[in-house]
């Protein structure tokens, strides 16, 4: 839907804002551009509707090289939302939403109907809000109107430049959720600029991390979290995320593979041998369906092995945490009580992994580093 081909932008003063950008955005994809300030993310966005012209390379929107399209016509077909909201203060809500339809010379009735439809879609009663001036709305409501205005003529591509950056955290969260809901229904191609990694991780299908005009990594949120390509990306994601880890945070970020996972019908003596070879003090007993049957520790396994029994006879069931409700604090307390891994289960007793002293220690170290720097 939107393709960047070796795109480069050099400003008159010689600053290279965007350097050789290649990116292909599919129809209906929600792509977030992120990076520290001055990384070229906003410039990249503005080149799509030609508020900035690229110095070299090509950009295609819907298959057309944008330099061959009249910029005014191009912009009328692309939604645009900016951080300053920029509703026209002298126009009512209805007139603001109707700006682009009027530019398209829609009939008055059609515009009126479309405005009502959009307001209803955003959960705003048309009779109540249509004739208000922007000043009479809260910041959150204003930006809702800003988003509706961009959607009025059903553009297939929508550009959003830090649209929620100026809102308070509660409105921001609410508008993010609404945007996600809307996107599920409308399936627009959205290019969204932000400097808030949490916002990016929450909204994006794919995230483009930029630094000094270059792309560092383009990936899905989970890929970025799991496989950051370099230290910059790691720091960019880790730093922001770790900054918000509290003792009440869920434990999924420190879950790891257990030292030993065995089927219930394994001979206890076999497990014991194995444990003595590789080191850990315990084994997780899990059946073929992934269901957790308990955890066995070395002294118990020794007893059962002497009698020639199976590992399932050695299990203990009381040490475990459910992922839905457990917090880092719960895990840390259990680990402080006894230095043994804590198995983590989902609500169907499916085994997900363990939490260990090591995990907590690593988390602490990364937080300490952050505090020092």
């Amino acid at each position, binding site marked *: 839907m939107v393709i960047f081909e070796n795109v480069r932008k050099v400003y008159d003063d010689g600053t290279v804002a965007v350097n050789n950008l290649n990116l292909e955005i599919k129809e209906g994809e929600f792509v977030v551009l992120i990076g520290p300030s001055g990384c070229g993310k906003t410039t990249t966005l503005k080149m799509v509707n030609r508020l900035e012209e690229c110095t070299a390379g090509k950009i295609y929107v819907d298959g057309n090289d944008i330099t061959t399209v009249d910029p005014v016509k191009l912009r009328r077909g692309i939604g*645009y939302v*900016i951080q*300053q909201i920029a509703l*026209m203060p002298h126009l009512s809500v209805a007139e603001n939403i109707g700006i682009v339809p009027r530019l398209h010379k829609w009939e008055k009735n059609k515009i009126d109907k479309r405005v009502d439809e959009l307001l209803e879609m955003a959960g705003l009663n048309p009779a109540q809000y249509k004739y208000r001036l922007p000043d*009479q709305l809260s910041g959150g409501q204003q930006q809702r109107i800003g988003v509706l205005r961009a959607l009025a003529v059903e553009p297939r591509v929508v550009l959003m430049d830090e649209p929620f950056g100026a809102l308070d955290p509660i409105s921001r969260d609410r508008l993010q959720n609404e945007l996600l809901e809307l996107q599920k229904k409308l399936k627009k191609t959205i290019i969204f600029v932000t400097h808030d990694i949490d916002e990016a991780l929450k909204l994006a299908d794919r995230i483009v991390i930029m630094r000094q005009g270059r792309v560092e990594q383009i990936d899905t949120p989970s890929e970025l979290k799991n496989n950051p390509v370099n230290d910059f990306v790691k720091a960019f994601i880790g730093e922001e995320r770790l900054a918000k880890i509290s003792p009440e945070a869920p434990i999924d970020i420190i879950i790891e593979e257990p030292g030993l996972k065995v089927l219930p019908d394994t001979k206890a003596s076999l497990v014991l041998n194995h444990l003595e070879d590789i080191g850990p003090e315990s084994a997780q007993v899990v059946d073929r369906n992934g269901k957790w049957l308990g955890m066995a520790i070395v002294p118990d396994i020794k007893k059962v092995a002497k009698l020639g029994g199976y590992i399932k006879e050695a299990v203990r069931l009381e040490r475990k945490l459910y992922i839905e409700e457990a917090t880092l604090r719960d895990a840390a307390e259990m680990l402080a009580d006894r230095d043994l891994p804590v198995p983590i289960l989902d609500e169907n007793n499916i085994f997900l992994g363990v939490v260990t002293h090591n995990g907590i220690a690593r988390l602490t170290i990364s937080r300490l580093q952050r505090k020092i720097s």
Partner: protein
Amino acid sequence: MNSDPTFMELLYKFVAKNYDRILFLTWQHIYISLIALGITIIICVPLGIYLTKNEKLTPYAIGLANIFETIPSLALLAFLIFPLGIGNKNAICALVLYAALPVLQNTYTGIKSVPPSLVQAARGMGMTEMQILFKVQLPLARPVLIAGMRVATVWIIGTATLAAAIGGGGLGKLIFSGLASIRYEVVFAGALPATVLALFADQGLKMVQEYYSPKNRAMRLARKAEKLEKINREEMEENCQENMVSG
């Protein structure tokens, strides 16, 4: 006893005898002022807009207007005798130069004070430069623009009284001839209408300004909303009745 007539009696007598002349001069005064104001606006508003797009010229243009502004008005009229001779043409020309500054400056400042984010949003939505000017910049600059015109109008009406000094018309004629003949009732008969004219013109423009104020705009919109609600309610009631009939 045969005492001197009072000032009021003299004034009454003068007005009764010369009311057609006073009316004519008042009309002439309005005419001169309107033409001067019209020319000022036609020249200075577009020039002000042009300056917002060519910032380098701004200090020169505003500086020039400032100089004309600073020259004493009577002196300016006198200077213009050389190129333009005496009469209304000269007077109108001087008035335009004199009133240029507030209109020029306020057009420039008014448009400059429109937040750049609004212009960017307008451009990003696909407005042409003309549409941005007429649908965003000028409406938003309107209060400042009208304020400039108010100042210009009051100055023009006031200074137009001096046109008589260089052979032009207007209420200044009464004032000057009254002063020359030491007949204060004649001075007054010219000064009063000139004052009233200035006050009315100022108030008139103020009303225009207030009509477009956000408060009044909000009120007009609220009325529209009420009307809409009424229509909705009536429609609902009608539907109810229809349902009842068919039910």
